[in-house]
């Protein structure tokens, strides 16, 4: 019998029991919807964190002090990186710029307005290595950086917090009781969740080290390699240099860590893949449950239509005719459920985006995949009931009341 003819009959019997068919499909709808919106969430998060890493600037190596402690006991970071380390690194091959970084938090005050924000003491090269652009005013100069000038560049959010819509450049603010002049406002990079690059203050490292925090050690050294340089080679050179400078024995562990951007992306992707897999896995379980729902309804349908099966057999329906008919019915149910589920998935992704503020991306592959999967679920869970129907004895079936 033609598939089209069977499909028509199948559609009619589904429509004859609208509520029941819908309830049976609901499992698939929810399952597919969950798979699609969860994968969309995973993809969105992945893209977001990739964007964040690229927003940090290119060709970047970041050196941080290693964690202090032993045997898994973490007691903060070691204090061992100095300005001299940074100055030595600049001289290495393929190193374009080096930005020493010290950091902390401080209270900013302008007239009667207060805001607490994070401070980054660094050099002008930090702007390029971390891809910060100036919106209004200017960045601070090498001279200012070296000369403990009382100038700051603030993020757009910090600017709004202190000055509202009024221009910030040229104003004087108090930072831990000292006067600083705002020389520039950064362009917005967008909130990145765990920290907001738009709400921070950049100032000369000399000022930060000596006058604000009173520290002699650096929190971080950012190295920007020249374009086209092999980051791994640069990383090796930096490592060798620092080992030598820190007088480490050959077999001693490093007291610093060097991460390059490729590492960061790799680590993030790893995490995100796991995350996506987890979400997808949970969602697949609901698809499985949906399949069981379809099997249940198909078993009921087959029993209810025992007599019809008997009649069809008496008219010459073969094993495969009956098998095909009920399989198509199951697949139709799971397929329609899948399509509705895709729509639900798009909706769900939008809701997640609105509610959690995380961008979601529905990928075509996940749509195709879950549609295929739901059709597969229909075949898999429809097979047993269909086979039961096909194996019925025609006499018994005809006699069934």
């Amino acid at each position, binding site marked *: 019998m033609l598939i089209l003819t069977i499909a028509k009959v199948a559609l009619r019997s589904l429509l004859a029991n609208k509520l029941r068919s819908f309830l049976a499909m609901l499992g698939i709808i929810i399952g597919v919807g969950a798979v699609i919106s969860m994968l969309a969430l995973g993809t969105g998060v992945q893209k977001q964190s990739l964007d964040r890493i690229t927003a940090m600037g290119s060709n970047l190596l970041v050196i941080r002090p290693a964690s202090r402690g032993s045997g898994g006991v973490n007691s903060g970071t070691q204090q061992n990186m100095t300005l001299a380390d940074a100055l030595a690194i600049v001289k290495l091959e393929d190193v374009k710029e080096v930005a020493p970084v010290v950091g902390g938090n401080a209270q900013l005050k302008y007239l009667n307005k207060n805001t607490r924000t994070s401070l980054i003491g660094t050099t002008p090269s930090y702007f390029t290595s971390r891809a910060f652009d100036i919106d209004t005013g200017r960045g601070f100069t090498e001279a200012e950086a070296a000369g403990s000038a009382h100038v700051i560049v603030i993020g757009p959010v910090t600017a709004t917090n202190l000055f509202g819509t009024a221009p910030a450049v040229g104003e004087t603010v108090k930072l831990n009781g000292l006067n600083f002049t705002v020389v520039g406002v950064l362009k917005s990079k967008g909130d990145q969740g765990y920290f907001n690059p738009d709400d921070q203050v950049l100032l000369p490292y000399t000022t930060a080290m000596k006058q604000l925090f009173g520290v002699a050690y650096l929190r971080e050294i950012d190295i920007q390699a020249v374009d086209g340089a092999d980051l791994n080679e640069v990383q090796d050179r930096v490592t060798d240099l620092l080992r030598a400078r820190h007088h480490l024995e050959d077999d001693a562990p490093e007291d610093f860590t060097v991460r390059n951007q490729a590492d960061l992306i790799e680590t993030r992707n790893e995490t995100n893949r796991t995350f996506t897999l987890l979400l997808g896995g949970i969602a697949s379980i609901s698809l499985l449950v949906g399949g069981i729902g379809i099997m249940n309804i198909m078993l009921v349908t087959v029993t209810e239509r025992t007599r019809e099966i008997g009649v069809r057999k*008496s*008219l010459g329906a*073969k094993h495969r005719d009956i098998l095909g008919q009920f399989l198509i019915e199951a697949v139709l149910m799971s397929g329609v459920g899948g399509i509705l589920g895709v729509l639900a998935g798009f909706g769900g992704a939008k809701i997640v985006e609105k509610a959690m503020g995380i961008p979601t991306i529905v990928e075509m592959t996940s749509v195709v995949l879950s549609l295929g999967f739901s059709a597969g679920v229909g075949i898999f869970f429809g097979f047993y009931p269909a086979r039961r129907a096909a194996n019925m004895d025609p006499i018994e079936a005809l006699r069934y009341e």
Partner: protein
Amino acid sequence: MMIQARGLVKVFTLGGTTLRALDGVDFDVDKGELVAITGASGSGKSTMMNILGCLDRPDEGTYEIAGENAAKLSADRLAELRNKYIGFIFQSFNLLPRMSAQENVELPLLYAGMTRGTKEKARDALARVGLAERMHHEPNQLSGGQRQRVAIARALVNDPTIILADEPTGNLDSKTGEEIMKLIEALNAEGRSIAIVTHDPGIAKRCKREVFMRDGRVVPGGTIIRGDGSHGTVPGAATATGSSLDAPSANSLPEAKAT
């Protein structure tokens, strides 16, 4: 010989006791015959009908339909034979719901693998039973008599070797039943072979031949043959294979049989 059964045996086992539902039955149907199979419940006539209809296989014996041996075939091969050679008419019509009369009648053609011209053939068959007007109606929009007409159209659409009718008027009032019988007789007059399983003596006596079954056997001498089978009336001299006077007494067979 359209149908030829020899030595049919069918044994059922029910809770340890065996029941010989058929115990060595010989049965033939010739081309153009209208034959009734009668007998009490449990006499084996339903079992015989199932085997004749290729719904079941005998445990012993041979069964040939249109020259093909159907006694030992697989379920799918039996389905093919049913589709090709047999048209069923059931007591409870057995039309499929949610399908129009025409679609119901098309079913045997579709199962035969026909893809073209099924609508036309179905329409012709419905016209033959006088329901051309109602071919787009679904069973629940039709009266009992109309439903049985659709079922008859379905039974003959594939031009079967034999039509097997199981109490075709059992669910109908006497007037509608009469119409259906007239239709069956008319089809027989066109040369179709028809076997009717029935309890109803009124129906049985309108068949040219009447076979009486008891305890899984065709009762010897219980067979009545009525002249040329002029419809509706029993001709004066019924010639029997045995003697019609031998007609069984213990059963529901009516006095009308022995003339």
